[in-house]
C-alpha cells in the first residue's frame, strides 16, 4: 500500500511541476465550453426568410407579422412567383420561404382547413429542420388563436414536448451535456494514455518493470491524481454552463456528482487501455483524438440525433459511453430525474470501467515488446 501511495505522490509531482501542461489542462475545457457554447448554438435568431403571400388579405398579413415579431425570423424578401422563390433559396438570400395560399383568411375559417407551405433550404439539414419546427409552432399557435377553436387539439404533441424542457428553444442547453461528455473523455483519456506512454518512451518503464511494483499498482497510481484534475474540469464546465449559459439545474447535485465521477473513471480507464496498446506518446494522442473525438461528436447524439442514424450507426452509438453520459446528465439537470431514471446509465458506466480496467491489466506487458 505504501508503494502505491509513493507512486501516486510521484505522479502528482509530475503533474504539478509541469506548469504549462497543467495550465492547458485547466484552461482548455473552459475555453472549449465557451467556444462550443457560442458556436454550436442551434438556436435560431433573426433567420432571413422569404414570404410568398398569395393571399394578401388581413389574416395573411397578421401571420407575417406574427412570424416577424417572434424574433426568430427576419423577413428578408417578399416573393411574387415560384421562380423567384426558387432563385432566392438557391442564392441563399433566404433560408426558408413561407407560402401563404390565396384566400388564406377565408379558408382558415372553413372546416377543411388551409395549408401553409414551408419551403426550406435543406442543404443545411439540421438548421432547416429547426426553422421548420419554429415556424410550425408559431403558425399552429396563430391558427389556434384565430382559426376554428376545435382544431387546437390537432397541434402535434411532439412540438410541445420538445419545448417543454427548453421553452426558449435555446440550443446551448442541449449542447452543455454534450460538451461536457466530449471534454471529459478527451482530457481524461488523453492525459492518462500520454502519462503512461511517456514512461515507456523515456525508458523509466524499464526500471518500473524491473521493480517489484505490480501492474495494477502502476495503473492505479497513474490514474489517481488525474481523477482530481478531471473533477476540477467537470466542475468548471458545469459552473460555466449554469452561470454563463444559464443551463437549468433542476435535479440533485449529489447524483450529478456521482455521474461525473463514474464517467471520469470510465474515461481514465479508457486512457489506460489506449496506453497499453500504443508504444509512444504520439500514437496514444492520435488514438485518443481519432478514436474518441469523432465518435463522441458524431455518434453520441451530441450534434446529430441518434434516431436519424442508419441502423448500423445507431448500433455503434450504443457502445459510445458519452451517449449514456449525455442522457444521464440531461435527465438530472433538465428533468430533475431521480436515481430510478439514471440507474441504467450508471450500471453501463460501471460495466465499461470494469471492462477497460480488466483489459488494461491483462494487456499490461510485464516485459518489453
Amino acid at each position, binding site marked *: 500500500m*505504501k508503494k502505491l501511495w509513493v507512486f501516486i505522490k510521484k505522479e502528482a*509531482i509530475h503533474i504539478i511541476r509541469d506548469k504549462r501542461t497543467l495550465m492547458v489542462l485547466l484552461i482548455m475545457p473552459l475555453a472549449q465550453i465557451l467556444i462550443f457554447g457560442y458556436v454550436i448554438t442551434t438556436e435560431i435568431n433573426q433567420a432571413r426568410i422569404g414570404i410568398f403571400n398569395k393571399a394578401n388579405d388581413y389574416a395573411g398579413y397578421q401571420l407575417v407579422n406574427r412570424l416577424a415579431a417572434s424574433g426568430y425570423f427576419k423577413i428578408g424578401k417578399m416573393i411574387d412567383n415560384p421562380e423567384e422563390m426558387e432563385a432566392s433559396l438557391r442564392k441563399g438570400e433566404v433560408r426558408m420561404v413561407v407560402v401563404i395560399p390565396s384566400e388564406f383568411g377565408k379558408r382558415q375559417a372553413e372546416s377543411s382547413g388551409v395549408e401553409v407551405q414551408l419551403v426550406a433550404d435543406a442543404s443545411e439539414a439540421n438548421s432547416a429542420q429547426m426553422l421548420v419546427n419554429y415556424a410550425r409552432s408559431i403558425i399552429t399557435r396563430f391558427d389556434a388563436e384565430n382559426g376554428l377553436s376545435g382544431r387546437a387539439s390537432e397541434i402535434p404533441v411532439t412540438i410541445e414536448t420538445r419545448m417543454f424542457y427548453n421553452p426558449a428553444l435555446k440550443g446551448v442547453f442541449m449542447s452543455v451535456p454534450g460538451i461536457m461528455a466530449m471534454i471529459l473523455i478527451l482530457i481524461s483519456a488523453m492525459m492518462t494514455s500520454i502519462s503512461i506512454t511517456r514512461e515507456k518512451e523515456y525508458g523509466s518503464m524499464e526500471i518500473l518493470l*524491473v521493480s*517489484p511494483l505490480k501492474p495494477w499498482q502502476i495503473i492505479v497510481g497513474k490514474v489517481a491524481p488525474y481523477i482530481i484534475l478531471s473533477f476540477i474540469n467537470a466542475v468548471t464546465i458545469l459552473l460555466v454552463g449554469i452561470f454563463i449559459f444559464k443551463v437549468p439545474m433542476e435535479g440533485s447535485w449529489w447524483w450529478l456528482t456521482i455521474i461525473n465521477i463514474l464517467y471520469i473513471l470510465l474515461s481514465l480507464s479508457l486512457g489506460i487501455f489506449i496506453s497499453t496498446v500504443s508504444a509512444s506518446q504520439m500514437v496514444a494522442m492520435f488514438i485518443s483524438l481519432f478514436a474518441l473525438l469523432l465518435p463522441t461528436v458524431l455518434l453520441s447524439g451530441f450534434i446529430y440525433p441518434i434516431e436519424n442514424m442508419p441502423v448500423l450507426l445507431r448500433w455503434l452509438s450504443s457502445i459510445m459511453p458519452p451517449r449514456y453520459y449525455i442522457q444521464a446528465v440531461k435527465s438530472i439537470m433538465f428533468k430533475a430525474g431521480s436515481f430510478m431514471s439514471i440507474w441504467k446509465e450508471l450500471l453501463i458506466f460501471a460495466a465499461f470501467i470494469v471492462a477497460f480496467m480488466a483489459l488494461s491489466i491483462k494487456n499490461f506487458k510485464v516485459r518489453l515488446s
Partner: protein
Amino acid sequence: MVTVSGVSKYFGNIKALRRVSFQVEEGELFGVIGPDGAGKSTLFRIILSLLLPDEGEVCLWGKSPVADYKAIRRMVGYMPGKFSLYEDLTVEENLNFFAAVFGTTIKENYHLIKDIYRQIEPFKKRRAGKLSGGMKQKLALSCALIHKPKLLVLDEPTTGVDAVSRSDFWEMLQKLKNAGITVLVSTPYMDEASLCDRVALIQKGHILEISTPDAVTQGFGKQLFGVAGENMYKLLLHCRKFYRVESVYPFGEELHLTFHGGGDWREELIRYLYENGLANVRIRPIKPNIEDRFMSLMSITEKENG
C-alpha cells in the same frame, strides 16, 4: 551466480544474440565488452527478465527469468543505458521513490550508497534533469543500489561521461564488488575492460572470448608493433600492401601492425616504405591491449563465417 546457456534472440531476421553462454561467479565484476549493436543490451534485458530468449536458458541463483520473473525482479538492480530516472523529480525524490518502490528506505541501505550519494548530496534539492552527465550516472547508480540487490546490472554506465567521472565510477564498482554484490557491466570502451575481473568480448551477437583481461591480451600470441610516421594515411596504405604484413590498424597516433607468422620484418618494411617515398618511419615493439585482441578475434570470426 548467473548462468547463461545457449541464449539466442532474434528480432525478425536480425540475429541479436547467437547461442551465447557464460557464467558469472558470485561476487564477480564481469564485463561485457563490444561495440554498439553487438547485443549487449539485449543480453542484459534477457537476464533481467525484460525480454524472453528465443532459445537457451538463463538462471540467477536457481531462478529463471522466464518462469519466475517476479523473484528475479526482487534481486536485481538495473541501470539502463539511457538515463531513465524522472527528470522533473529532485535527486532526493528520485532516490526516495525507488527506495519505497523496492520496499526499503534510504536510511536502511545508506551504507551501500554512501560513497556515491555523498558526491551528489549537495544537489539533493536539484531536479535530476539539471544534473551533469556524471552526476546523473551517480544518481542512477544510487537508485539501482538502494534496495541492496544481489546482482547489479549496468548497461553502458560510462557512455557519455567525462574521463574523471568514469574512473570514479569504476572505483565505485570495485567497492561494490568488495561489498559482495555481483556486478554485470557492459561497455564499448576497451580500456575499461582491464578493470573487470573477467570479460566477455561480444561482437554481432557472438561471444568471441571469455577470460580475465590479462589472459585476453596474452591470447594475442604475436609480436605487435607500433608504427609512426609523417603521413599516416599513406603509411597505412603502404603497410597494407607489404606482403609480410598480416594486419594493420590505425590506433591513436600509431598504426598497430603484425607480420605473418608473428615474425619480425621491421627492416624489410622500413626499406619498402623508404622505396615508396616514406622516410622517417619509426617502428617499435609494443604490448597488445584488449582492443588489439578484439580486432584480431573479429577478423578471425569474420573469416570463419565467410
